[in-house]
């Protein structure tokens, strides 16, 4: 081999969505083909840029920048090499400079600045891309100043409730307790969301850094990441990164000679949606059934094992390092009203360009669905989108111009939640969707409150009778009544918000609940 000739660097994502579309097979094919034709290749398993319709997206480093090809299948690999993959040659799958792709170029990537660029579990790569700058700054600051920076940035919890992160931290910092904890909520149970998964798999160090900053700020020396068991790829990446961080003294005792101590561990959930609710999550971490606790006391005062606990979502914690690196002003300058910074929006379901769009608050749904998303995957009209997971309302086209902003959404009983947008085309049956919301609530209820536990099953039955045309006026009144009872009589948002998708379907798409009079198509309904 020519000693002066450098190996070509080729990137193939290890992100699980890319893997679900064949990225591992593509990586193997590249290694095999390179060996066959005698080309020296350095294959890096980066994470995804979040342009999932282009996955597996293969990139090659050239003098001009990183050139992309996608979606690549193993059988394309030989022709890619033949047309000059190693120097970014033209090919039918060419995407040219990846960073110039408009989907990516028109985003404001703060939390996801490194997504798809670095090797997720390579600490040196993380540091070469601004990693650990935030913590380095924090270690030189007074804890109160760290908390003030987070408060001033306007960062609100990204897990759904949008509570200001700095205020929560301040409460924990002021609470009495020998031991305090930082708990990361990585349960991400909402359908249509995958931003937490992308952080865990694609940039785990940013989460580790954010949690360490939180620990230093409030005086907590132990942290847990509660990750849902449906995310085995995330578990592996997080554990690799935690091991590397310990080895380089970014975790453990006397971090980088600062005298600060922080230990971190990943704990896996066990397939219960309710364990995303913070008090249920704490019960689960303690080794119990995930029953929701009454509040007060707040977890900030009496949380994990009865100790003061910060519990924040993955994205909330992963947004902290850049705030401590670039300053709260920088972060706060993005956004509108009281919704500051950026939101990693997830485009899911029936959408042509599904993936991650990190944008400053204020962007409209229409922009997200059509400019970024490219419309429905099926090519049919988009009829509705469900925003904010299974407890979020179904939003009709007439509201697509609403700006993404917590307060503007709440005004219409809609929910930004964790930023998941699930798209449906005009073949959707909204009565079926409403019924599923009730079924989901019945399956996942922790069982503590009667309206949630029993009401949801009654809800399914009432919707069945309504759709069958059995005394529809009476059934609709009954359904609305039931929703009121659930709204008012539930301890947490599972029972308390499940009525939102149901009522929004009923209010915006009443015709779907009256079909029995018009047509008699038998529906396949499969009970679980």
């Amino acid at each position: 081999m020519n000693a002066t000739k450098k190996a070509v660097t080729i990137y193939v994502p290890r992100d699980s969505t890319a893997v679900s579309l064949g990225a591992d097979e593509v990586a193997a094919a590249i290694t095999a083909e390179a060996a066959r034709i005698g080309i020296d290749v350095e294959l890096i398993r980066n994470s995804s840029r979040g342009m999932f319709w282009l996955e597996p997206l293969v990139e090659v480093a050239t003098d001009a920048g990183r050139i992309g090809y996608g979606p690549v299948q193993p059988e394309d690999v030989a022709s890619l090499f033949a047309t000059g993959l190693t120097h970014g040659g033209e090919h039918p799958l060419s995407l040219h400079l990846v960073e110039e792709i408009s989907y990516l170029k028109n985003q404001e990537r703060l939390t996801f600045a490194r997504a798809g660029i670095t090797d997720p579990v390579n600490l040196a790569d993380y540091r070469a891309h601004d990693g650990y700058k935030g913590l380095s700054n924090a270690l030189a600051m007074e804890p109160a100043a760290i908390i003030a920076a987070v408060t001033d940035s306007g960062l609100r919890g990204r897990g759904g409730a949008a509570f200001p992160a700095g205020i929560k931290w301040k409460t924990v910092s002021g609470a009495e307790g020998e031991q305090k904890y930082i708990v990361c909520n990585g349960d991400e149970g909402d359908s249509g969301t995958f931003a937490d998964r992308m952080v865990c798999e694609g940039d785990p160090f940013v989460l580790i850094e954010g949690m360490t900053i939180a620990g230093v700020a409030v005086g907590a020396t132990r942290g847990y990441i509660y990750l849902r068991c449906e995310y085995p790829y995330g578990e592996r990446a997080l554990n690799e990164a935690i091991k590397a961080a310990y080895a380089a003294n970014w975790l453990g005792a006397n971090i980088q000679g600062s005298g600060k101590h922080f230990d971190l561990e990943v704990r896996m959930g066990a397939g219960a949606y309710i364990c995303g609710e913070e008090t249920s999550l704490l019960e689960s971490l303690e080794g119990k059934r995930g029953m929701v606790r009454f509040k007060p006391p707040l977890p900030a005062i009496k949380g994990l094992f009865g100790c003061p606990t910060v519990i924040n979502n993955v994205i909330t914690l992963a947004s902290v390092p850049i705030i401590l690196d670039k300053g709260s002003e920088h972060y706060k300058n993005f956004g509108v009203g009281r919704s500051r910074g950026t939101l990693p929006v997830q485009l899911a379901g029936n959408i042509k360009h599904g993936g991650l769009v990190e944008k400053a608050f204020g962007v409209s749904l229409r922009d997200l669905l059509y400019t970024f998303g490219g419309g429905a995957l099926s090519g049919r009209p988009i009829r509705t989108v469900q925003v904010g997971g299974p407890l979020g309302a179904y939003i009709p086209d007439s509201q697509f111009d609403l700006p993404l902003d917590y307060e503007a959404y709440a005004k219409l009983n809609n929910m930004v939640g964790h930023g998941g947008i699930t798209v449906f085309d005009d073949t959707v049956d909204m009565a079926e969707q409403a019924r599923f919301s009730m079924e989901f609530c019945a399956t996942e209820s922790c069982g503590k409150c009667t309206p949630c536990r029993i009401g949801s099953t009654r809800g399914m039955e009432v919707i069945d009778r309504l759709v069958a045309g059995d005394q529809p006026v009476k059934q609709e009144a009954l359904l609305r009544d039931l929703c009121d009872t659930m709204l008012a009589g539930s301890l947490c948002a599972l029972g308390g918000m499940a009525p939102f998708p149901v009522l929004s379907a009923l209010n915006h798409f009443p015709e779907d609940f009256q079909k029995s009079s018009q047509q008699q198509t038998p529906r396949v309904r499969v009970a679980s």
Partner: protein
Amino acid sequence: MATSTFERRSPPIKLAELSSLSAADSAAINAVLARLKNLPGALLPILHGVQEALGHVPKDAVPVIAKSLNLSRAEVHGVISFYHWYRTEKPGEHVLHLCRAEACQAVGGRALEAHVKASLGIDFHETTADGRYTLEPAYCLGNCAVGPSLMIDGALKGRVTADRFDRLTGVTA
């Protein structure tokens, strides 16, 4: 409390006599316990460890785990039954987790679900007669941009059509 009801219903039993655990299973459970029992809140990690080693959490593992953690059998049983992930019956050779959630529904998930059940001839939580597949529902696998989604023994698959399902499993109706 549920604890006492359960205790009342189960008369004291001699574990050594009634346990159907094989020597190998017992050894695996004890190894998991030795490794994890001192963790704070150790029960979930232990149940994961046992299920990973044996494919399920055998009913007779309950008293062993309970004793080691100083919990009642009812408490351990209550935790196992609360979480969808844990199973007490031996699964088939391969475990399929099929996503039933909204983003997958939006791209044909309901039709795929019907196909999967028909071609395997089983419902959720069941195992095929030849012992090859166990089918479980999942409520989102985080693969919502490229559904319908399926996990086969922990390996994620996207854009699963009926055809792709048949190719992945080698099952035809």
